[in-house]
């Protein structure tokens, strides 16, 4: 009998299933006893939060789709019907609408965590690259979802974003016509966006599976950025990190609920409550907040193809980040110069977001150009050279002994001290 799994579960039913399909053993191994670095701070919650966000988005999305009509004459009204007539439709739609923002907030913090603690470095390069794929899929999904209510911002957002492809030399206009299924954003466009908006989240689930599988091969990074050396450096995932993640999930859901119940339209744009009108562009077309930095980069370049290339390049550069950063030290804690510069990058991206929210006039153009330049400078120039020039602080011997007193002497106490900096 080759292949039957020898199960350790005492419960006969679980044992019977586990012998034939060892899912219980798998869960126990990957989420029960899974050895996890014991020094995580709350930044390590955000992967789990993103998974929670994705699940809530899929569930609310399925129920919204039951009441939504993807037709240019009915889409806007069907969304209003969801808001007024469908039982709890207002709640489901507001959760979904604000869920996009919540999803992006946690994913951006998750990415920042990766940047700050060097989670993209060997051997986690592929894990990181799969993450960038997830980000691109999320952006595509969010963009197409925003088109579905068929308000003014939906329509003109769709027009502007699809027109980005017209910058491609020679075949550009053909690509745009193909994307539209016509000669302007119209019913065929709406239909295909709805179809893809429903499909892509499940593609995200599939790629997410690869992301998690890769993570469970390399193991998690940690705030010290050094590898796990012995079982003393780890804790079983359950109950230590299931509980820590649950605390984060509670706070996360509280903030989400506050947004849904008290400021449901705070992050949206009022123009999207005007039905789409192909004859009049709103005075100020802006994307949702999570696209603003990229939108600013697009507008900062006074050349169509250049702007589009820079915008896509700003994300594609992340793919090669593991090779651009030449420093062998992962965590910013031990990189005195990079530790400052990463905050410059954060401020730079926030500034780009602010620029994206303002009309491209006067000082905003200048700030946009400076920030765009710095963004690429950071990744393409600063990171490769800094790795060679910077003198990192001495790395701790292990996670259990993060502090080695200078000049020898006995190590303090038997009880392993918690690493610093935990909020």
């Amino acid at each position: 009998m080759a292949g039957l799994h020898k199960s350790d579960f005492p419960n006969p039913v679980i044992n019977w299933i586990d012998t034939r399909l060892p899912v219980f053993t798998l869960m126990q191994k990957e989420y029960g006893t899974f050895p996890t670095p014991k020094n995580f701070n709350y930044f390590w919650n955000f992967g789990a939060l993103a998974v929670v966000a994705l699940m809530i988005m899929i569930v609310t999305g399925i129920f919204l789709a039951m009441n939504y009509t993807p037709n240019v004459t009915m889409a806007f009204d069907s969304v209003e019907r969801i808001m007024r007539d469908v039982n709890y439709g207002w709640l489901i739609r507001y959760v979904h609408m604000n869920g996009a923002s919540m999803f992006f907030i946690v994913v951006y913090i998750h990415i920042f965590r990766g940047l700050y603690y060097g989670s993209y470095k060997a051997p986690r390069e592929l894990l990181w690259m799969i993450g960038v794929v997830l980000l691109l899929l999320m952006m595509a999904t969010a963009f197409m979802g925003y088109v579905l209510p068929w308000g003014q911002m939906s329509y003109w957002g769709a027009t502007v974003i699809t027109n980005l492809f017209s910058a491609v030399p020679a075949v550009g206009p053909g690509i745009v016509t193909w994307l539209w299924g016509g000669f302007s954003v119209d019913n065929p466009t709406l239909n295909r966006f709805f179809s893809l908006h429903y499909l892509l989240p499940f593609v995200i689930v599939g790629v997410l599976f690869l992301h998690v599988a890769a993570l469970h091969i390399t193991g998690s990074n940690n705030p010290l950025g050094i590898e796990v050396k012995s079982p003393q450096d780890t804790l079983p995932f359950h109950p230590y990190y299931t509980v820590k993640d649950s605390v984060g999930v509670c706070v996360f859901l509280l903030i989400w609920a506050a947004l849904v119940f008290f400021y449901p339209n705070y992050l949206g744009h009022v123009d999207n409550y005007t039905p789409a009108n192909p004859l009049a562009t709103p005075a100020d077309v802006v994307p949702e907040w999570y696209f603003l930095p990229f939108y600013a980069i697009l507008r900062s370049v006074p050349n169509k193809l250049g702007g589009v290339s820079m915008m896509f390049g700003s994300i594609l550069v992340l793919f090669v980040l593991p090779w651009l950063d030449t420093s062998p030290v992962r965590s910013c804690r031990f990189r005195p110069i990079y530790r400052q510069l990463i905050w410059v990058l954060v401020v730079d991206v926030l500034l780009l977001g602010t620029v994206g929210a303002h009309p491209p006039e006067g000082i905003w153009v200048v700030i946009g150009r400076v920030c765009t330049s710095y963004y690429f400078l950071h990744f393409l120039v600063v990171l490769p050279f800094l790795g060679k020039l910077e003198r990192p602080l001495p790395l701790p011997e292990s996670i259990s002994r993060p502090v080695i007193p200078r000049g020898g002497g006995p190590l303090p106490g038997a009880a392993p001290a918690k690493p610093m900096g935990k909020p």
Partner: protein
Amino acid sequence: MADTVTVPPVGHVTEAPRRDLLKLVTVASAAIGAGAIAWPLIDSMNPSQDVLALSATEVDLTPIAEGSGITVLWRGKPIFVRHRTPEEIKSAEDVPLNQLIEPQPDSQRVKPGHTQWIIVIGICTHLGCVPLGNKPTDPRGEWGGWFCPCHGSQYDTSGRVRHGPAPLNLNLPPYAFETDTKIKIG
């Protein structure tokens, strides 16, 4: 931490029930939360307010000739409104209840003072087909009411089932006479 290593041994005795309580409270809170989230989603699949708003239909009875009936749509279902002849009323009233599959006097199926009007939901109680018989030219079965073409169920002039396989009489919609010639269904 190193200073407080000495845990009193009694602590171990109370440890287990305390941990059990914590687990119970945690799981119970999570279950209540999940239920509170699930209910709006489930309820969103119930009839929405605009569907419920369309749940009443008014019917003008004047054009319906004696001996014939019309079919109107109410909540997406066919409603038979039939103007009975005196003979049809008499046969419906006179039938002994012990001959019926679901015994019910005709007086319970029509409104007092309006016995010429029989109003039923036109859905066979067998498997949901629409029986024939509203038009005088339709087959009306042996009892002169309605005949279901799907499996041969037959109904009398009061819409009561007289021949299987249907198990029950045709259902009655809620309705009221607004005037002698106008009813409101729903």
